[in-house]
């Protein structure tokens, strides 16, 4: 009886030890799966709900060996397309190339994995207007630029470029997208830019024309407007006025030669631009006679004078 009891006790101990060994192995496996399950659930819901090991079958064997966990980031690259300052909005014309900068990162094991990348373009209404895919072998990370052509018939509007990856043993959906605008071009310039720059050019042109016109008008007025010599002593002023009006009158008839000839008269100092008399350094009547003579000899023109109204008798004249 004691022998039976001893045998039973030993059997229990052996069974217990065996059971403990099995439980220990199972516990280790659960911990590993638990870690993966936590990642999956944390990404999806943010809750710490463990997923049973059987739930990820039939990929369980792969996960156990050396699991791959990819993330993908795609964004517009400014190398080929117009981007805003934020770098998030791109603008392309129908038929143009949309470059997408793709970055694949393997946060899992270090083995080489084939990843299927799918690129799609969706309209703002969620309709897929373009789709293509390619397979890329990735070990840890991969960076490259993928160019896709926006279909020629694409209507202007806001679209989203979506990039997603599929790989063996995938647990976490990896998708990224960015928005871009499709806009037609006029003479190689985006429609909105064309009107913006066109308006600015027209505005600048009008402004330049107005300023130029005002400048020319002012210059012309300055050239032909009678100069004021009220600061000159009265006994000398009349000579200044006769000379100034004579030069201005001749300038209207023959141009700037009138000023050039006047500037060569001895004793007469004038402003080359306006023809204004600056100083008389000889007998005024002699300067006037010489100027009239030079105009007659060099230009073949005779000179008439008109005295300004404030120089004629005032008792019977009203201004």
């Amino acid at each position: 009886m004691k022998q039976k009891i001893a045998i039973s006790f030993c059997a229990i101990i052996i069974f217990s030890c065996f059971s403990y060994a099995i439980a220990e192995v199972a516990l280790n496996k659960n911990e590993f799966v638990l870690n993966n399950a936590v990642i999956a659930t944390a990404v999806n819901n943010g809750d710490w709900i463990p997923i049973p090991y059987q739930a990820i079958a039939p990929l369980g064997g792969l996960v156990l060996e050396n699991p791959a966990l990819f993330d993908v980031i795609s964004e517009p690259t400014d190398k080929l397309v117009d981007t805003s300052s934020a770098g998030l909005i791109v603008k392309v014309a129908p038929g143009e190339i949309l470059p997408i900068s793709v970055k694949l990162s393997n946060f899992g094991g270090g083995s080489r994995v084939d990843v299927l990348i799918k690129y799609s373009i969706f309209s703002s209404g969620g309709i897929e207007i373009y789709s293509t895919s390619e397979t890329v072998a990735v070990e840890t990370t991969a960076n490259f630029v993928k160019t896709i052509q926006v279909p020629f018939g694409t209507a202007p509007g806001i679209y989203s470029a979506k990039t997603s990856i599929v790989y063996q043993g995938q647990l976490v959906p990896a998708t990224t997208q960015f928005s871009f605008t499709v806009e037609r071009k006029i003479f190689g310039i985006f429609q909105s830019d064309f009107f913006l720059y066109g308006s600015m050019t027209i505005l600048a042109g009008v402004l330049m024309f107005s300023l130029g016109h005002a400048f020319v008008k002012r210059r012309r007025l300055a050239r032909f407007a009678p100069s004021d010599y009220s600061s000159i002593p009265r006994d000398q002023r009349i000579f200044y006025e006769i000379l100034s009006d004579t030069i201005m009158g001749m300038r209207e008839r023959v141009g700037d030669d009138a000023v050039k000839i006047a500037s060569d008269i001895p004793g007469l100092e004038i402003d080359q631009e306006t023809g204004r008399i600056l100083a008389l350094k000889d007998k005024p009547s002699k300067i006037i006679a010489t100027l009239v003579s030079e105009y007659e000899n060099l230009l073949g023109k005779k000179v008439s004078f008109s005295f300004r109204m404030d120089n004629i008798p005032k008792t019977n004249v009203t201004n």
Partner: protein
Amino acid sequence: MKMQKTILVIEDDKSLRAAVVDILRLKNFLPLEAADGKAGVEIALEKHPDLILLDLILPEVDGMTVLKKIREDAWGANVPVIVLTNLSATNEQLVEDMVTHKPINYLIKSDWKLHDVVKNIEKILGGVKKL
């Protein structure tokens, strides 16, 4: 009734004088004529015209002397005078005299059409008070 303004034309060239007088009549002025400088001074001081149109090269008394004599008179000191001549002011003394005796205009005949001269007269008399 609007009073006619009198214009004394001192010009030795008969055809030119006649043309000027005709245009002045056409413009409703009352023209007076003098064929030489001496007659011009006499008519001016006697009739006291509203404006004198004066040639410089004249028989008997030259135009600048006529202007001097007119300016010496109390009435003549202020009467508007337009010199209409072919003589350019290339002489220093002529310029001195012109500045001293102050004709309103010194016009070269070859540069001016008679209609423009008369327009100038109208413009000047538009601002002249009858003494």
